């Protein structure tokens, strides 16, 4: 019997497991901290006292999605807090798959919205990171698609990774 099979058996029964740092474990740690950190930063810029919520609401409206007011308000107020909760859980390594699922779903929606803006040839600011634009120009463009695509790849990796903790044997 191989050692991996033996380890799996121990995990499933909740008994003691080996604390071995693996490459995939380290990769998972890096991805979830980076992803969680970016979502926390993105959330902070949307929740920043004073201008954050209003600027985000303006950004959502600038996308000209034709949403009713209640939907715009819901998207404006709920999205940043979902980002906070999922970002924190990713960083803490708790419910990683659930958090990755949420983050991935958000990113799919963001990518769709950005694509629609590009297809409609609108000139709007992303609002993804509020006033910050760490990786892309503020104006929505292909760069934002690539940025979100990379983040989505990270979320999918965490979702499908066999173990999500740094300790490869003790997911």
């Amino acid at each position, binding site marked *: 019997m191989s050692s991996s099979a033996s380890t799996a058996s121990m995990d499933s029964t909740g008994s003691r497991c080996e604390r071995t740092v693996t490459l995939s474990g380290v990769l998972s740690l890096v991805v979830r901290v980076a992803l969680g950190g970016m979502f926390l930063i993105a959330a902070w810029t949307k929740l920043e006292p004073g201008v954050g919520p209003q600027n985000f*609401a*303006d950004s959502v409206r*600038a996308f000209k999605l034709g949403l009713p007011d209640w939907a715009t308000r819901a998207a404006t*107020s709920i999205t940043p807090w*979902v980002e*906070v*909760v999922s970002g924190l859980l990713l960083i803490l390594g708790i419910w990683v798959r*659930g958090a990755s699922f949420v983050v991935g779903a958000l990113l799919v929606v963001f990518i769709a919205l950005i694509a629609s803006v590009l297809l409609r040839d609108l000139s709007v600011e992303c609002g993804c990171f509020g006033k910050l634009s760490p990786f892309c120009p*503020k104006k929505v463009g292909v760069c934002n698609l690539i940025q979100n695509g990379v983040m989505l790849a990270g979320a999918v990796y965490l979702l499908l990774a066999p173990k999500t903790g740094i300790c490869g044997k003790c997911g």
Partner: protein
Amino acid sequence: MVDRAESASTPSVGFREPSRRDRKWKRAFVHAAIILGVGAAIGVVDAQLRPVKLNRTVGTFAIDELPEGLSGGERRPMANSDEPGTNPLTNAATSAASTASETTTSANPAAGAVVGSTPVLAAPDPASPKSAGGFQFTPKDKLPSGQITVIEAKRAFDSGQASFVDARTKANYELGHIPNSVRLELASFAEGEPAKLGLLPREMMVIIYCAGGHCDESERVAERLEGFGYSKIFIIHDGFPGWQAAGHAVEVGPEAFE
């Protein structure tokens, strides 16, 4: 072997014990639902505590969407010069165009409207700590949405497709202001629609400024203007100090429209 034989002989009832893989995904979905629920609950509470305004027009479109000509800074014909009667400022500019003071430096629709009030141009005060040398202009990527740089304001000024509103006090206005600005402070709206709104065409861009930095008079005046049907409102983030420090034309004296 016995178990397998028993299961083979037992009629299938369509039920299958969830595999470990199924349980893993089911758990992930449950966790995701909880995360969404918690986020939504906090968000709903936050929305009650800090409601956002959806009727405001400040910042709902990017500067790139402004009328053609604002991006290049070239002088263009006045927007409504063929529609006399629609814009008092424009009409004043049109009628006074031939006699406009040399101090008016652009095709601003308000240009020339101050003829008779002896406009005086003031050069940037080099002794002022916020003058050209020491003033820290805010870069575009640091601005909140709906706010523009002094450079963008100057382009709009030169294009003649914008009205300027000074949201500061009368005393500050008289010490120096962007040429042909209409002074509208928050108090001007205390008794309903100010008569001076007749000087500001609603279809044109309105650019508001105050003392720059942390002053919020522009934002307050912008909100009031939105309430009166204005839809293209921008705020000069660095305000009048930025305009002055950039060395652009400054007019001194009382407002001609009071």
